[in-house]
């Protein structure tokens, strides 16, 4: 039944586009479609170690839409939320549920790179407008980029490249890496290696821990025996909090500097307490950024949720901003994909994170900031790198990145 009515409407829309025939289909004029709610599928983690990230993204998107009166480009926004649990084995089924089952108009997801890979595969085949508000798997905007997939967060290597460069600048010569052994961790470390090795640094050993394991003791003991000058670590959410605490409790904090991408400290600044003091990170956002968009966003978000936004919330905000730009260009009709995608691809706006635009493969080009955790806050130390595009030097695939098929 569902499929049949679906076909009728699409068919009718086409006829309407031709012109006069529209009147013959009074039940399915474009006007009705425009007035109908726009169903936006949210494939995000609402449980597990990344639950806070999914919540922050959702909050910011909700805030944006509410500030626009609940509508984007004249269409009422209806969220269809699915908890992906950051579990890659469930990703295909859950994405299909949203795309084929719920028949959402736009797909937004997700946090975990492994889940995003499975999601993107379906999104590419279905051709549905898709925005990635966090997952940084490099390949999503490298070899496997697609005209309908936009990332508003970062590529996994980007923060690593910025952090590695900052560590060299800080005079660090030897490092151990310790990270979750899945795509996000491995690519983050790869980015770090790229700039750290290029700057003459030496990596003594690369340690990994299976995601989402949080028994860090074994790795910490090994770090202590290897005695590097610094450690570069990718962990996030609850795992990152426990990591900083274990790192401090093991006594390493005073002898081996802890560095990482900003995910190590974001969202857990306060909870980390004394254990987090002095942890240095590179990220495309820092709370105290001095720009009008950031100040307004922070005030509004705090008023709505009694909590200041983190980088994940900023990414959620920018996701909705980009979607808004696309929808406006398409007059609220997601079927006008050429108009929608072209506008999104060429979008340039001032995000709370600073200037935001997209690369040819639809990954953000943005600034990275060096931060240090002090007194429960990420303190801004300076710009680590400006206009960072996804580095293709670290790209390891056989074929060159395929450009999206949309014409610019």
């Amino acid at each position, binding site marked *: 039944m569902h499929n049949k009515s679906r076909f009728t409407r699409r068919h009718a829309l086409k006829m309407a586009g031709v012109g006069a025939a529209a009147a013959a289909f009074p039940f399915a004029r474009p006007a009705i479609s425009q007035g109908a709610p726009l169903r936006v599928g949210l494939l995000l983690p609402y*449980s597990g170690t990344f639950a806070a990230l999914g*919540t922050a993204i959702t909050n910011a998107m909700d805030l944006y839409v509410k500030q626009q009166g609940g509508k984007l480009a004249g269409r009422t926004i209806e969220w269809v939320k699915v908890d992906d649990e950051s579990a890659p084995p469930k990703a295909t089924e859950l994405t299909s549920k949203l795309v084929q089952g719920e028949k959402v108009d736009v797909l937004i997801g997700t946090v975990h790179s492994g889940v995003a890979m499975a999601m993107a595969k379906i999104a590419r085949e279905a051709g549905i407008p898709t925005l990635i508000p966090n997952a940084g798997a490099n390949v999503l905007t490298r070899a496997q980029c697609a005209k309908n997939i936009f990332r508003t967060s970062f590529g996994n290597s980007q923060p690593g490249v910025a952090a590695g460069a900052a560590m060299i600048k800080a005079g660090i010569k030897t490092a151990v890496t310790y990270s979750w052994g899945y795509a996000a961790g491995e690519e983050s470390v790869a980015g770090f290696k790229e700039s750290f090795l290029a700057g003459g640094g030496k990596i003594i050993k690369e340690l990994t821990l299976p995601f989402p394991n949080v*028994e860090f003791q074994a790795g910490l003991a090994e770090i202590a025996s290897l005695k590097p000058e610094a450690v570069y670590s990718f962990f996030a*959410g609850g795992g990152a909090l426990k990591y900083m605490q274990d790192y401090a*409790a093991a*006594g*390493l904090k005073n002898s081996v500097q802890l560095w990482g991408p900003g995910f190590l400290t974001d*969202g857990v600044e306060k909870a980390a307490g004394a254990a987090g003091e002095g942890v240095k990170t590179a990220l495309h956002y820092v709370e105290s950024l001095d720009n009008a968009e950031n100040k307004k966003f922070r005030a509004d978000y705090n008023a709505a949720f009694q909590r200041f936004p983190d980088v994940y919330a900023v990414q959620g905000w920018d996701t909705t901003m980009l979607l808004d730009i696309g929808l406006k260009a398409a007059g609220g009709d997601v079927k006008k994909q050429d108009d929608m995608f072209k506008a999104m691809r060429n979008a340039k706006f001032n995000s709370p994170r600073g200037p935001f635009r997209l690369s040819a493969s639809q990954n953000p080009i943005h600034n990275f900031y060096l931060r240090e955790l002090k007194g429960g806050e990420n303190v801004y130390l300076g710009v680590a790198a400006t206009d960072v595009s996804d580095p293709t030097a670290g790209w390891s695939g056989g074929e060159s990145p395929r450009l999206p098929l949309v014409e610019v």
Partner: protein
Amino acid sequence: MDLVLIQLLNGVQYGLLIFLAASGLTLVFGIMGVINLSHGSFYMLGAYGALTLTQFTGDIFLSLALGVPLAFLFGVIIEWLFIRHLYDRDHLQQVLLTFALILIFNEAQKLLWGSYPHSVPVPGYLQGGVKISALLTYPYYRIAVAAFCVAIALAMMFVIQKTRIGRIIRAGESNREMVEALGIDSRLLFRFVFAAGAALAATAGIVASPLESVYPGIGEPVLIISFVVVVIGGIGSIKGAFVGALLIGVADALGKVYFPAFSSSIVYALMAAVLIARPGGLFGRAA
């Protein structure tokens, strides 16, 4: 100290903590024959309970003293509301109901505490640690937790071997009908055992809360590793749970250093090896 020794220490400490969680599961599974998937939820509630209680008491051990009786009481209520209807039903229905409990507890956790990670402070007098190598300190709190787990293990073995309730529990495990024929109310026994299991899981969650950060879904990995321990040790055997948990802890800690590529599968490989050699588990009856 040598890296191997440090890893053994880490493994033993981790294993002792797993034992606390797994001992409750093995009791419930072995004596009542109930597969309790919501066991990890009691661990989670223990951790979140510790978070809230410690905000009032200021000391994790005061929270422990308050939290364990609360968890026992909560176990009694859950048994009375749900679990007692499962005894005569098959495992599939037990799995269905206790899985539903996981979802309910997770949702309740989100409503009550939200989804951001929290940390529970280590009490002031246990800050710091013992220096065991040039750079490495072993936190006092971890040592205290290990000692606490050993004390609980000894107390449990004493209760089970030497006391009347222990005898009833052992008898209930080997032959439920006979125990009932001797005039012992198995309903009461089961209620006690389930509540004790819940209290043990919560105890593990409480003492682990300053070691773990407290976040949604914290109980699920504990549930899985507890089942592995129960299977390795033999269903219903406290001694088995103790040995199994230590084996798992040590295998995990050493595996992470010497076979990092296989570190996530090493405990399952261990489980498979034990099952091949002794299908009933190390201390279980031959299956």
